[in-house]
């Protein structure tokens, strides 16, 4: 997956979680939670959705590494490449 593809996937899932939010206007370097008002249940659902779409199970300890959209894209690309190398 390219950065753009990962971004499209993340935005699609965020749109499902926060249908009323202006997902396309998310600032890539700013806190995702604050920008579209996600609570802990939303975050958990987001992680479940990422897992369903990519197979990447993000441990709780890594949640802080996905604070912004840009970080989330980088983290996921890294995890997916790691998985590809292993297989």
């Amino acid at each position, binding site marked *: 997956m390219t950065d753009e593809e990962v971004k499209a996937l993340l935005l699609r899932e965020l749109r499902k979680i926060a249908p009323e939010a202006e997902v396309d206007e998310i600032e890539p370097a700013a806190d995702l939670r604050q920008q579209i008002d996600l609570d802990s*249940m939303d975050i958990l659902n987001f992680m479940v959705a990422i897992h369903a779409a990519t197979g990447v199970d993000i441990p709780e300890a890594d949640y802080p590494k996905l604070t912004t959209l840009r970080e989330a894209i980088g983290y996921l690309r890294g995890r997916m490449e790691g998985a590809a190398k292993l297989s």
Partner: protein
Amino acid sequence: MPLLGADMEAGTIVQWLKKPGDAVKRGDIIAVIDTEKATIEVELFETGTLQSIIVPEGEKVPVGTVLALIRTDGEVAPPAEARPQVAVAPARVAPAPTIPVRPKQPPPVTPAVPGRLRVSPLAVRVAIELGVDLSTVRGTGQGAAITAADVQRAAKVAIPEKPPSVPVEVPEVKGRRAPTMSPAERHAAMRKAIAAAMARSKREIPHYYLGTWINLSRAMAWLEAENLKRPVTERLLYSVMLLKAVALASREIPDLNGFWIDGAFRLSEAVHVGVAISLRQGGLIAPAIHDLDKKGLDEIMGNLRDLVKRVRAGVLRSSEIMDATITVTSLGDQGVETVFGIIYPPQVALVGFGKISEHPWAANGMIGTKPVMNATLAADHRASDGHRGALFLAAIDRHLQEPEKL
């Protein structure tokens, strides 16, 4: 029409899910009702046969109106003049401050009342969506009833600039008919309902407030270890531990678990914890998780997940709305430290949790930093005193120090 919350005055029948002659049993969902706050699936508290439906779909009636007649098991099929029978729903609505007397003579079932339009429920909804005045629509359905297609035709005449090929999208909720209110109407109605309940609370309930800091090191360490073992789909949120601790404390100090009705406190044996869930478009609902004190954390997590999903979709069950015995509001996700709660009448207590953050914490003569949370209690001074409230908060703290036992 059941009273689904202290603030409800009327409801609209969206759909009947049973028809006359059907055998019905306790727990069945018999109808879908639209209130100011949500679409509610009305559960039945009797077993028997649905004899007749009195209020047709699409009609808005005040709380207390008989909606349908149910012949309970053992009763013989009645003669034409109606004998006392079970009216759908108000039976279990104990916390009702006032249930209007329902009409002794139920209105006739026949929808062909002179002067009243015959309109299908779908047509009503389409008319609301398209802004069509139903009195201007000519019906082509059975008995000149107005159908959805009639409304759409009328809408095209009224708003010619609208492309005629666009199909009217009728949202479905779990294969059932969707609510009759638009999001904007729902929002306005919800603000009104919250205003009524909160104004009543502030007017009638002499609140007292207590607060304490709770050290969550043990609870959070336990949860972290537990979640590490679990796939993402089975992880727990910390709020599940808080809910369970409140439920256990409610069982120990029952003065805060129940209702204030007619000048007296009615203690509740069951612990149904209301969970305040905010809606993304504004407003909140606090439906109950039933018998939470008897459930394990996994089951509570499943209930909470399901509840949040249904609250945001706007579909709840009547019992969830009616019978919370105490409410919890957790605003930690929004970053506040302290909640000053307003009790939801006729309940007598509301527990508030703020965010968990690292604080300096002194213990055994040492100072370190610990994840700490502020817990508050707003309680009804008519039902309990500060001493009992203090024991209650202390019990919550104690249970959170033994997370493995929750």
